[in-house]
Each structure stands twice: as C-alpha cells, then as structure tokens.
C-alpha cells in the first residue's frame, strides 16, 4: 500500500469536501430539524396518497407555513413540520380539521412531536460539550497507552470525520436533528476505534523501523491491517444498511448518519490519521537533523 506517498491527495480530497460543505452551509444554511430550531411535527395516516398542495390548502387557516412530506411504504402517511411551537391543544385542532376533511379516525393521528425553541439550543450545546469532553478524555487515554502524537493525530482525525459528515449533510441537505447528534457521538466512538487498530499495528512495528523511514513503516502497517478494516466495515455497514432500508422514518434518520460516519471513519483511519502522524514524525526528524549537524 502506498498510502503515505499520496498524502496530499487524501488531504486535498477531504479539504475539498469540508470547504464545499461549509460554503453550501453558509449560502443556503443547514437543514436544521425542529428539535434544533423549535417547532412541531405531526404524522398522520391518510389511507391514500394525498397531494401535498391539497393538504397545505386544507390547513391554510392555521398559518403554519408547514413542510408536508409523504411517508410510509405506500406514501399513505404525511408528515407535517412547522417551526411553530404548537401545544397539544392546537395540534388537536389541526388534526381535527384534516380528520374532518378526509374522513379519518382518531387512531390515524400516529405521532406528534413538539419542541420549544430553548430545547434545541440546549441539545446543540450539550452535543458540542460532550464531543469536547469525550475528545479530551480519549486524548488522555491514547497519550497514556501510546504516545501524545498518536493521541493528537487520532483527535484531529475525529474532528475531520465530524466535519466531513457535517459537510455531506450540508451538501445533500439532510436534516440535522436529535438522532443526528447521537449518531455523531457514535462516529466519535467508531472512528477512534478504527484508528486505534491501525495505530496499534504501527506501535508494534516500530521496532522494525529502519533509517527513520516512518512512511514505509506506516504503509507496511496499513497493508497488514487493511483486510481487517475492510471486513469490519463491511459487517458493520451491512447491519446499519439493513436498518436504513427496513426501518421506519425515525430509524432512517438515525441510520443514515451512521452509514456515512462508519464509511468516513474507516476511510480516515487509513488515509488521514496515519499520514498526519507521519508528517509530524518527519517534521521532527528534519528539525533535529538541521539542528544537530
């Protein structure tokens, strides 16, 4: 495997995705779910596919400015989303209107969710807080078991993963919500797990290091662990993909960031984490080289 020789390609690719995502995010904004912005979601079983415009027309009087999308296997359900903070009474009013118009039963009101605007800010700040705390704790553990440089490389890779997944969400306009946060934190776990396996091999092979050729050492180590990396990603992705294909709407929301995260996590542990470590090691060698002679 000649991973290190092409470091610039990997770094360039990742930077391009992150920058593109950031630009897209800044221009058109992230698609923030109601649990971030505050608002209300209602899911109603219609029994047949009803055109979105027709439903918007039905509930016009409530001035919800709602997004209406179809859900369910046969598109027999609708999901209403509005940034307005509706309490259970107002939700019932909206449902009653739809119920009357389309002759529905009470049990066709399948789900409703409402978030006050302050809840979203809290979730956001708690998520950032947890990622920071988790990163620091993991950095300490890795520095203790390996060396500080491995720890820093692992955490930088982690940040890379989160940025790439965020960028992908911005580029493809996937909604960012509560499950996304949990998924992000899983990525934190998975990406680190994967990176550590590669670093572990490098640590083991360091005794064979010749002429301070860290690039060669890392290439060797990656070759030795690549089969495992691929096999594990395949099995993990297999289970999550089934979840995505077969799951209900809320599971899909959860599975998608996981699929992206596991994919990005696998890629980065090979193509980002190790090259960062090599760059740092080489920089150190050069510095010592000039200073010593």
């Amino acid at each position: 495997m000649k991973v290190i020789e092409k470091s610039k390609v990997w770094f360039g690719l990742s930077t391009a995705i992150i920058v593109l995502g950031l630009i897209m995010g800044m221009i058109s904004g992230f698609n923030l779910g109601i649990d971030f912005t505050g608002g209300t979601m209602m899911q109603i079983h219609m029994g047949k596919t009803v055109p979105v415009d027709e439903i918007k027309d039905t509930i016009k009087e409530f001035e919800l400015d709602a997004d209406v999308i179809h859900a369910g296997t046969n598109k027999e359900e609708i999901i209403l989303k509005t940034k307005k903070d509706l309490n259970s009474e107002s939700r019932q009013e909206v449902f009653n209107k739809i119920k009357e118009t389309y002759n529905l039963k009470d049990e066709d009101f399948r789900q409703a969710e409402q978030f006050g605007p302050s809840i979203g800010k809290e979730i956001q700040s708690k998520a950032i807080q947890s990622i920071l705390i988790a990163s620091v704790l993991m950095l300490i553990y890795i520095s203790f078991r390996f060396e500080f440089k491995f720890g820093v490389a692992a955490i930088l890779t982690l940040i890379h993963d989160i940025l790439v997944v965020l960028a992908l969400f911005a580029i493809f306009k996937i909604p960012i919500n509560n499950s996304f946060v949990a998924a992000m934190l899983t990525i934190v776990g998975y990406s680190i797990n994967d990176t550590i396996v590669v670093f572990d091999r490098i640590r083991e092979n360091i005794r064979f290091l010749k002429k301070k050729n860290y690039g060669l050492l890392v290439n060797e180590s990656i070759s030795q662990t690549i089969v495992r990396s691929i096999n594990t990603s395949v099995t993990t992705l297999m289970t999550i993909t089934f979840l995505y294909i077969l799951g209900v709407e809320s599971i899909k929301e959860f599975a998608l960031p996981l699929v992206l995260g596991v994919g990005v996590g696998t890629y980065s542990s090979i193509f980002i984490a190790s090259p960062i470590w090599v760059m740092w090691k080489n920089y150190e060698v050069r510095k010592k080289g000039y200073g010593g002679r």
Partner: protein
Amino acid sequence: MNLKNAVILILLICLTVTGAVAGFKGLEVGNVKIKPIKDMMQLGLDLKGGVYVVLEAETDATGNDLDKIMNQTKEVLERRIDAMGLTQPNVNREGDKRIRVELPGVSDSNEAIKAIGKTAQLQFVDKEGKVILTGNDVKNAELMFQTDKGNLPVVSLEFKSEGTEKFREATKEAAINKDPIIIVLDNAVISAPRVNSEIPNGKAIIEGDFTREEAANLAALIRGGALPVELKEVQSSVIGPTLGLDSLNQSVKAALFGIIGVFIFMLIVYRLPGLIANLALVIYILVVLWSLIGFNAVLTLPGIAGLILSIGMAVDANVIIFERIKEEIRNGKSIRAAISSGFSRAFKTILDSNITTLIAGVVLYQFGSGPIKGFAVTLMLGIVASMITALGVTRLVLNIAANSKGLNNPKFYGA
C-alpha cells in the same frame, strides 16, 4: 477431540440453543417459568406508543428553593397521574427546571396533558372576595352522588383540622345573612352555594353541572393538591400504538437480516473460525438482551440502533483475532501456537480500541438526555459483552478445535 473438550463443546452448544429457544418462545421447567424476551423487555414509548411531555416550571427560584419547588411539583404530578390509573407511568426531573412525564398507552394526549398540567388552584371565597380556604386545606376529595337530586355527581370535600376550623368560622358568619360561599377553581366560579347554617364537621360539597367523569377528575385534581408553580409545555411527543408496533417489528426484522448477513459473511471469509465466531455472536446477543432485562433498561428506537451497531463491533473483535491468527499461520507457526500468540496480540488491540469507544459511551450517557441515554446504555453494554464473548467464548472453542485431530488443518482457517 478428547472427552473433556467434547463435553465442554456440547454443553456450550446445548446452553446456547436452550438460551436462544427460551428467548424466542419462553421456557417452562417445573415451577420455573421464563417468558420470551420480547415479553420481558421494557419498551420505550417510541416502541409501544404513548405520550410524553416535558414541562418547564416558570419560576426564578434557584438552588435549594428551586429543588424544593421541583420536588413538590413532581409529587403532585405523580399523585395526579396515579389517579388516572395508568400502567408504568414515569415522572422524572430533567435538568434544573424541567419535568418529563411519560404516559405509556395513552392515546388522547390532549386530555392527558391538560389533566396533569393543570394548576388546579382551588379556593373558597366569601362574598367580599376574601379567600377563606385553599386546596391546601383539603384532606380528601371524592366523587359522590347526590341522591336527593336525582343522582347528580358532585365532589365531596373533607378539610384538615385547621381547615375545619376556618370553614366553621366562615359558615357561621355567612349563615347570618344566608350569604354564599363561592368555590373557585383556576379563577372560574364552579358553584356558589348559600350557607344556611354553621358547618362544624369540616365537610363540604361542590355542586356544579358536572358529568360523572368531570366530577371524578376534579376530585382527583383536588386530592393531588395544587401545583406550586405554573408549568409550561416545552416539548411533547405522541406516538400512536400502531406506529410503535411498526417500528419495533421493522427494527427486529432489520436486525435479523443484518445478523444473518453477518453470519454468512463470517462463514465464507473465515470458515471454521467464522463458524465459531457465529456461535460467539449468538451468545453475545443473548447476553446483551438478558442483561438489558436484568438492568431493567428501557429499550428505545435509538437503543435498537445502538444494539445493531454493537453487533458490528462484536464481529470486529473476532475479525481482529482471526486476521492475527492467519498471519501467524502464514509465518509458519503451528495452528495451536498461532492461536495462542494471535490471541495475545489481538487482546491488546481490542482492549485499547474498545476502551476508547467506551469512554465515548460514558460521556454520551452522562451528558445526553432521553433517547441518547438509551443509545449509550446499549452501546456500552454491547462493548463489554463483545469483549467477554470474543475473548472468552471464541478463545475457548478455538482452542478446543485446535486440539482436535482433523480440525487443525490450516485450510479450515482460511490461511
């Protein structure tokens, strides 16, 4: 294969099969009855349907004062919910000023939220508007029927001793001019009966144009006492029972397909060790499910996702071990030596990588709320269980296989 190893192996397989069958169908041996896993698992609202609402107290109190108010509020809410006669309701404080109320099986969310969130300020006021008694003076409130007026539902009240005295004094005064005593609930006059004589026994009746249900609810509200603060609904969710069931069935189906996929993959890629890993994986799944029941954990949708992800990670431990063993075999070691050194090398890797993930899980549990916590629990449990089964079961069975003639051909190990 020597006798001892054969016995261990057969025992292990029997145990696994029994465990799996018991999990699926339930088991009955003599007096001991084990219900199937799906009946014993506590399901979250998202899987069985119901209502949850997060209420925020509108108060500026802090520290101990806030604590006192919140605990009182929680108690009042609990009493009111008890009066509704639901199974397994849940009232928890969330953060500083919030209380999360979970009502499984409730379908009319509107009514439920209204009933529990009501402030129910009950007051007895004299004709000048002076407050004589409040809900806090009430000892008991019950639904009763006034037989002399055609079985009208009313609420009968019994006051605490202090309240009895206040009520006696007020009725004595009012009786002089046959003045009314006005009963006010949440700033609305419910009834204003005229007082004909002094009432010394601390008993009163609230008449109104009640239906039987309204009177029963009102009695429950008064019994529960007044909420010490106003509550605002900041977050709520209603999940219909059909959707809950759909979600559960779909996720179980997804999990089954995923697991079968993993089984086939492991068998094709790793052959004999793959078969052993599959056995370990079955045991892993049983361990996780039974521990979830043992810990009384509540399974939610994100929890299921965490479980499925942890299956992937359980396989990872096995993959690391087998890849190591393959390498050792290629380096010319015997099967037995390869297994032994493969394990000790893989052990360190698995430990380091899983502990870092575990750190993330703990942080997630500590700082997450609601569904994120559920996810963290299953993830942490999964990591611990996967280390136990991969390093315990896989190792045990692999060693047995390596020690048996006929099973120690490198071909079986995919090398």
